[in-house]
């Protein structure tokens, strides 16, 4: 297969925020948790160096809130949860995403059978 790693990384950067917001919606998560869960999908290829700064930006923008919680096995952890603006952003991104996927599909469906 042709090497599309450059294209992949561009696309990945765009959807990472959406994935993280979707993940946090299911329940508050701390940094290591987010990193591990996202690592389960290698297509996202998002590492600590990308995720932590992104979380900080989401917090600055007011999309997520944080709280510290004691942990039995070590130092306290900083948990992230969706704030109201983040919730609204996620809903908007969700519908945008569906529309985007449909649009892309109309362009690429045609050549599906030739590879």
């Amino acid at each position: 297969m042709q090497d599309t790693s450059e294209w992949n990384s561009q696309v990945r950067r765009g959807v990472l925020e959406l994935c993280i917001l979707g993940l946090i919606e299911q329940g508050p998560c701390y940094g290591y948790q987010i990193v591990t869960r996202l690592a389960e999908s290698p297509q996202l290829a998002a590492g600590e160096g990308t995720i932590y700064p992104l979380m900080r930006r989401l917090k600055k923008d007011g999309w997520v809130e944080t709280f510290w919680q004691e942990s039995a096995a070590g130092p306290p952890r900083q948990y992230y949860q969706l704030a109201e603006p983040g919730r609204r952003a996620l809903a908007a991104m969700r519908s945008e995403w569906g529309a985007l996927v449909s649009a892309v599909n109309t362009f690429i469906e045609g050549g599906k059978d030739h590879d």
Partner: protein
Amino acid sequence: MTEQNPAVKRYLEEFRKGLVKVEPADRDEIVREIESHIADALNAGQSVAAVLERLGSADRLARAMAAASLLESPGRKRLRRWLDIASLVALYSLPSLLMVGFFGLLMVVGTVGFFAGFAALGMSLFRGTLSTDVPGFQFPGGAYIVGVLMILLFAGMVIGSNKILGRYLFYVIRISRKVLG
């Protein structure tokens, strides 16, 4: 704990150093979070080397965190915009216009005086006399001195008011552009 491992300690120290531009409260929070991450990763069985490698260079991570940290929050952006609008209103108000008028006038007077100084100088040299004809100002070399003094004084006035006016106008233009987009 994590602090005891020298490689981790070194990493966190370098990391903290890279956050020097960040507010102390934010900086502590950032460092604590990465410390917590390292602890969780080690507890999950990763080696110190692997954890630190996945984090990437301490300097690079610090720069990325600082860049994210120094972004303006939406509330502060809104406040700054209101302040800009307020300063714009002040800038276009009467006192402001009077000030512009005053320095403009100063420039005109200065320019006139500047050339009057040259005229006085020229006249005294042309007449071949170095004494002034102004009553009450009888002293040798008077017109010459008066001419030079006027040139210096009014040159200063022109340059000074020019600078002030120029800076002020640039400031008004800059704020106007920012607020009006």
